[in-house]
Every structure is written in structure tokens, then in C-alpha cells.
């Protein structure tokens, strides 16, 4: 039987957060896969929007787009418009969910995808915001999906590309960000949210077999822990089959037997596609 990759685990966990009939603003890669899995499972009326100007995207299994601006992203769409228009829909409040990855995320949900080191002479110059800053500023609720590692979960991001709750409390609203919230952080270890007053990150659920201690060890700051910690259901065989069919174009994976998380691919620690 085939194990479950960290990416599969995160995408399927995230897919369960998407309610039916809602509108999700998805980037390519995992967000798009998570959204597509949701549509094929518990949210058949979910509308997928892509920043290239695409509303109501369908997906050809095995031919997922690499860019939100390419023809494959437009396959089967209900509406094609331009990029700026799509973000203005977000600003009007039409998009229930936005999805973001993160090279770094801090305890207030601020995200860095710009630079490691200083902005003047960065150690690593990352691609930049793309639509990430807009998504977190404009969508009704943002889901952050990223692997759980200390170098990603940092006390203070090197650079706030995409503002979460800034320095906590009401600092987000005071900066003029009067819309949107950071709804959840989904990782290969846990599900987290933000405590309503301090706006600090808080553990809410654990992936199957993971302990609070393991999560703490992989988090570079002091994590709040909710009163009730949910144990997250592992991906079902059906979810995995759907995920893999979408990704690969056919149900290549053996989905029998118990499902166990494999170590996440270390790879590049930055999201290489525009958010």
C-alpha cells in the first residue's frame, strides 16, 4: 500500500475546511488540489476562482495548471475576465476563502514569501507576494497551508509580505485591514487557529498519531493550546484516490489498507508558484 505524503495530508485536511456553495480563491499546486478534492467530495457546489481571471474552473485530471494564468487553468470555466477584476471581486467580499502557502509564518499569522534576511541584501530573494498579500488582505477567510518546521514557524517573520494579525490584538484593523480573517493554519502535523483576543496562533487539532509535544518541537515560538484538541481523521481511501487521480490523471495509487504519513519532502522551502 502506498503511504500518504505530507502534501496529500495537508491538501486533504484543508479540503475538509471548505464548505459547500462557497467561493474559494485558489492558487496552483496544493490549494487547487485541495479545492478540487473538496468539489469531488463534500462540496460539489464549491466555485473555484483563479487569479488569472478564471471563475468556475474545472480541472482535467492529470493536467492541472502550473500557472493560474494558463489555458489549462481556464478549462471549462464559466467566466473569463482579467486579473485586476478578479482581485476587485475579492475586495468586494465575494470570495469566502483564500489559500496561502508560506516560506515563514509567525505566531500572528504574518507570512513571508519575499526575503530571507534583509530586504536590502537578502540571503535568499524569494519570488515575492504575487497575489498573496491581496488574498490575505481581501478574502473573507484565509487558510494557510504549510509544512510544520521550526524554520517556517518563526517568532517573527523576516519580512511581512502578507499581513496576518500583525502584532496581535486589534492591530490588523488599526492598520486599515478592516476585512478578512485568518481562519486556520493546516500543516502535516496539526490544525491551528488564532485565539480571538490576543490573535496568537493556537493548536486546535492533531493529525493522526501526532502529539502536542511533537507540534511544539516543530514550532519556533510559544504555541497556545486550545482546551479541546481534536484528532483529525486521516485521509480516507476515497479522498486519496480522488486526490491522486486529479494529480496524476488516473487512480494510480493503491488505496487499500491503513494510511500512514510519510516524511514530507524537504525540497525547496518556499512556495515556487505565485500565490
Amino acid at each position: 500500500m502506498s503511504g500518504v505524503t505530507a502534501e496529500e495530508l495537508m491538501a486533504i485536511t484543508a479540503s475538509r475546511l471548505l464548505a459547500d456553495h462557497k467561493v474559494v480563491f485558489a492558487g496552483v499546486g496544493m490549494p487547487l488540489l485541495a479545492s478540487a478534492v473538496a468539489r469531488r467530495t463534500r462540496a460539489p457546489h464549491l466555485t473555484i476562482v483563479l487569479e488569472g481571471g478564471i471563475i468556475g474552473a474545472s480541472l482535467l485530471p492529470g493536467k492541472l495548471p502550473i500557472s493560474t494564468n494558463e489555458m489549462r487553468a481556464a478549462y471549462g470555466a464559466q467566466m473569463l475576465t482579467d486579473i485586476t477584476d478578479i482581485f476587485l471581486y475579492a475586495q468586494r467580499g465575494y470570495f469566502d476563502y483564500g489559500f496561502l502557502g508560506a516560506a515563514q509564518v509567525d505566531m500572528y499569522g504574518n507570512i513571508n514569501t519575499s526575503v530571507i534576511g534583509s530586504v536590502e541584501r537578502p540571503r535568499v530573494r524569494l519570488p515575492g507576494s504575487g497575489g498573496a498579500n491581496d488574498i490575505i488582505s481581501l478574502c473573507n477567510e484565509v487558510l494557510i497551508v504549510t509544512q510544520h518546521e521550526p524554520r517556517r514557524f518563526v517568532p517573527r517573520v523576516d519580512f511581512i509580505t502578507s499581513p496576518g494579525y500583525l502584532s496581535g490584538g486589534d492591530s490588523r484593523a488599526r492598520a486599515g485591514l478592516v476585512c478578512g480573517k485568518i481562519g486556520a493554519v493546516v500543516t502535516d502535523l496539526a490544525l491551528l487557529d488564532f485565539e480571538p483576543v490576543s490573535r496568537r496562533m493556537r493548536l486546535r487539532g492533531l493529525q493522526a498519531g501526532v502529539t502536542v509535544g511533537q507540534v511544539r518541537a516543530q514550532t519556533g515560538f510559544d504555541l497556545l493550546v486550545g482546551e479541546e484538541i481534536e484528532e483529525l481523521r486521516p485521509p480516507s481511501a476515497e479522498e486519496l484516490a480522488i486526490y491522486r487521480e486529479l494529480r496524476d490523471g488516473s487512480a494510480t495509487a493503491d488505496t487499500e489498507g491503513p494510511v500512514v504519513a510519510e516524511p514530507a519532502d524537504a525540497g525547496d522551502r518556499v512556495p515556487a508558484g505565485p500565490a
Partner: protein
Amino acid sequence: MEQVAVLAARAEREAAGRLAVDKRMTAEVATALIRDGDHVAIGGTLYSRTPMALVFALLRQRRRHLTVSRPLACYEIELFLSTGALDRVVTSWVGIGLPWGLAPIFRHYVERGEASYDEWSHLAMGLRYKAGAMGVPFLPSLTMLGSDLARTLDLQTVTCPYTGQQLAAVPALNPDVALIHAHRADMFGNVQVDGYRHMDADVAKAARKVIVSAERIVSPEEIAAQPAQTMLPHFAVDAVVAAPHGAYPHECYGLYGPDLEHFDAYVSAAKENGPAAGLRYVEENVDAHADFAGFVAAAGPDRLAALAAEARELMPR
């Protein structure tokens, strides 16, 4: 941040007096409109409908001290950097695309401080062009507030006189020259595009000079047969360049898919050899051919046919 100069751009437009004449010319003649130090805005997004025939003509000219802006920038940025043409990139994102990781040549220059990167949000880039296209010096938005993007760029805010709401004042951008690739244009510069339009309409209207390449040059009658498809009117265009496959190896909606193998080869070389690989790419793919048609022809008919078939398969029926 460059100075906001929307009124100067308007005054230039009023004074310039474009003529409604045959504007067809070669990519080389058209891109000679571009001067050292100009701000050149490149239409399309990432690897979609990039005006590659025009980009190649500009690369061939080895201009200096250019600023380039784009909605999302792909490896064309690395080619400008590798040939010493580029001082500054203005965009929200620079990379090759999801499977290829970070852009190595871009990193090389920016991490050494040899080129600068003004990083805006994607919507902010859209609003910058839109403000320039609308003839206003700024547009209000809820984007970029509270971020280090705003701090780094010294983004100003504006207060709504009715509600007191504080908003980002996204400054207008009026590039010196815009390069746009389209599906069809007539000789006067009436321009039509199929599918989504990226930010192209605003990019062009914001710019002081506009160069359009088109897959096909068509009659004014063919334009008038589908007037709602027209993205730019002739009086917003300075030059029209016939460029079949003019976005190759990037894609053109409905006509051909991206040549991902070409990307693979480029990225492998760039990762290994950095700027030298970028320069070599330009020598082999731009300088070595008499014109862009030569570069396209070198891809071979089989590859072009396969990319066309891929595009057809994705179109609505």
C-alpha cells in the same frame, strides 16, 4: 518608487497626436522606439501571451538601464539581466513557474544588489496600471496595508472624506513603453484578444507608447465583425508588428500551449551556469537568428503542431 506623472503622460498624449495610419513595421523598427533608461511594461502574465517577439527584438538591441514591469515576471527578466539591460524590476512576483523553483539568475543579481526589485502586490500592480490608464494619480484600495511591502515602498494612505476609512493610495504607473501580444490587429492598431486579458488593456492605456504584436494582421472589416472583442482602439497604439507564434515558447490562448521542454532546458542551464547561461541563451536564440521567425522555425514543425493540438484540446466546444 518612480514619480507619479499621470498628468505629464496625459499632456504627452494630447501633444503627440497619433495618426490613424498604417502602423505596421518590423519588431526591430518598433522596439527602436525604446531608449536607454526607459520603463518598459511587458504584457501578458508569467508565461501566458508574453510578447516574446518584441522582447527578443528588444534583447537584440542591448539597451541599458531599463526598468521592466509586469504583472508576474518569468525568465524574460533573467535574459534582460544577463545581457546587462536591466536595472530595476517592478512586479509582484519573479520566478519561472511552480515546477522549476526559484529564478537563479534573478536571485544572483538581486541578492548582490546589482539589480533592484520593487515588490508590489499583484492587485497593486493592476491598480497602478489602471490608475495610469484612467488618468488619475492614485486609486484607493484595501491591499498592502500594514505590510512590509508598503513600508519598503513608502506607500501612502488616503482617508475617505465621507467615511473616514483609511485606504492604501496605490500610485499610478505610466510606463514609457508597453509591449503587448494579441491574437489579431488591423494595420491601424485596433487590437483583439481571445480569452482572458491579463492586465493588458490597462498596461497599454497607461503607457506613453504602445507596441503591439499580433498573431494575425487582419482587415478592419474583420475587427468590426466582432467589435466587443476589441481590447484596444487604434488611437491607443503606436506600432503594429506581425508576429505569428509571437508568444512562443510561452503560450497564446487557444492557439498554442507553452513549450515546457524549452523551459526545462533553460532552467537547467541557468541553475548550473547563472548569468552566463542567460547570455548564452540570448546569443543562441536571439542573436543567432535573423529575426523571431527564425527562432520559431528552429523549434520545428512537429513541436509547434503538438503545442497547437494541446491548445485546441483545452478550448470550449
